[in-house]
């Protein structure tokens, strides 16, 4: 278990002072696949490097199972890192790369050989054991980097965007592979990515970061279905933002009034009291209906075909647009065409009232 408590990291001083991390607190549980998700420059890699020991935080504490990590230099921390560039040692073979950590730990030769063989089998690199790292493909290098970091059996594996250099197909395969490895080894994974889909498919929990702080922590389902604020809703998946007035609040549900004057029940994390605010709703939760039905009416501006589904852009009033997504099932026929007046409907309880 890693406990990160009120960690801040500042670069520079005075006017050029820049907070790479701003009062970050998070607990990463044993055996979980924990993802730090955010746009570039949000501090996710800095936080990973704080755990690894390459960055000293300006303030705060980092402990693992009660032990203070910050007093230990990188080579004494029971964590291993898979670097974004893989950082394989170019003068060593695949086997020597994977054995490196075990050798540094002073393990007996026989044990090293056995563990290295296991690791190479685990990542399916046995056939390449004596190749130089420059002679294998990007995907293979990625697997060697993974095996090298896993071989010393660390308590925690840190992964810094390890899939970003791979092409689409290989990335998909490696996502499943990584998840399998994490489940098999039972090692805690801390995974850094800017790819929301990667985060959703692999993680047990996700921390969404922006501008040096954590905006929301939760399961992929929670993060996607119940974004706490506009940034999270916007960063993860596609979202419609509708201006609403919040009426009565009961528990975590609120009665909101849309621009059309109609009311609908929506989830309210904050339980905000009255006033104007924003309702976030996913395109796939809405559907097109004949103009006399539904919660909102508008003009169908654009129909975009995506293969698996079709997106309908509906203009409501002057500067309100809502996107509706419909799956293209066998036999489904387009009911509406561009220029039609249509209705948009969504069920009670799927919209999310945002904090801001």
């Amino acid at each position, binding site marked *: 278990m890693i406990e990160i408590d009120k960690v801040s990291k500042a670069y520079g001083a005075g006017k050029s002072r820049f907070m790479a991390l701003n009062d970050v607190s998070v607990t990463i549980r044993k055996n979980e696949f924990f993802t730090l998700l955010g746009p570039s420059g949000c501090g996710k890699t800095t936080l990973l490097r704080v755990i690894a*020991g*390459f960055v000293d935080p300006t303030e705060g504490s980092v402990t693992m199972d009660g032990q203070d990590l910050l007093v230990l*230099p*990188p080579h004494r921390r029971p964590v*291993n*890192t898979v670097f974004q560039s893989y*950082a394989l040692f*170019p*003068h060593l073979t695949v086997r020597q790369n994977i054995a490196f950590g075990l050798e*540094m730990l002073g393990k007996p030769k026989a044990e090293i050989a056995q563990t290295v063989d296991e690791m190479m089998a685990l990542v399916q690199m046995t056939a390449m054991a004596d190749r130089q790292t420059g002679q294998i493909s990007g995907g293979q290098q990625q697997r060697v980097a993974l095996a090298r970091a896993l071989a010393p059996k660390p308590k925690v594996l840190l992964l810094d965007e390890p899939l970003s250099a791979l092409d689409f197909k290989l990335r998909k395969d490696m996502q499943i592979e990584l998840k399998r490895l994490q489940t098999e080894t039972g090692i805690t994974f801390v995974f850094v990515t800017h790819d929301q889909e990667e985060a959703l498919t692999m993680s047990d929990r996700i921390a969404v970061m922006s501008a040096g702080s954590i905006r929301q922590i939760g399961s992929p389902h929670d993060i996607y279905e119940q974004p706490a604020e506009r940034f999270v809703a916007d960063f993860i998946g596609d979202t419609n933002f509708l201006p609403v007035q919040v009426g009565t609040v009961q528990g975590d549900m609120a009665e909101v009034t849309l621009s059309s004057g109609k009311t609908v029940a929506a989830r309210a994390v904050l339980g905000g009291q009255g006033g104007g605010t924003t309702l976030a709703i996913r395109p796939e939760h809405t559907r097109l209906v004949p103009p006399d039905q539904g919660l909102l009416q508008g003009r169908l501006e654009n129909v975009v075909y995506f293969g698996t589904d079709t997106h309908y852009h509906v203009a409501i009033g002057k500067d309100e647009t809502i996107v509706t997504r419909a799956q293209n099932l066998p036999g489904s026929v387009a009911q509406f065409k561009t220029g039609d007046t249509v209705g948009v409907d969504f069920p009670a309880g799927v919209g999310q009232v945002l904090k801001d």
Partner: protein
Amino acid sequence: MANSAKGFDVRKQWGFTTIAAVCFVLLYLPVVLLVVYSFNAGTSVAIWEGFSLQWYRSAWDNQQVQEATVRSLVLAFWASLIATSAAVLAALATTRVRPFKGYSTVFAAINQPLMVPEIVTAVALLILFAGIKVQTGYTGLGYLVLAHSAFCIPFAYLPIRARLQGMDLTLEQAASDLYASPFQVFRRITLPQLWPGILAGAMLAFVISLDDVVITEFVKSAGQDTLPTYMLGQLRRVVTPEVNAISTVLLAISVTMVIAFFFLSRVKK
């Protein structure tokens, strides 16, 4: 490449080819003449009298040349060894630390021999060593070794530093992440990758030491001629193609070392 864009081609500028040709002739014609006359059958370095290897034979049999050659090689070996070791440490200290105040001063201090005129260093060393000689009575090769080591340092330092700067720092981080102590990181990761730079630095230092006249001339004690100072002494008396023969051999050694390094560093990549 920006310069190869249509409209500007430096090769088409007026006079460019001519100037380049003149430069190459000036660079290589004297060397070619030197090599050619080393095979002269006569005693002149200007009048060709037929092909012969006699000057190589006479140089080989000349005891003074033998002694000077051995001295030059021993001197260059120790000087390049000491200079390269010091240069490795200096290069590590100037690339593997956070930028600090006075960094450029340190950089300038390391490269002092490149900036201070050689003759000034020579005179300064002469005065210093004369004092020590009087005090200790020691007149061995140590003075020359120290002097050569000192002025060889920047030549060894620059390629090593360039190599260190070009190295990926995440490799060293990856090693320390894999439980390697700072010394193990250096031993197992930094040093193996630094070898081409060290080799380049050492060879450069070796050649520079082998070639030095000014400082050697001032610092050497009696009977401590190196090849270059011996040749200079010969030129003061009578010039025979023997000097050409020695020069040609020196040239061959230098060229061989440069080519050897070129291939070594290419294979290492």
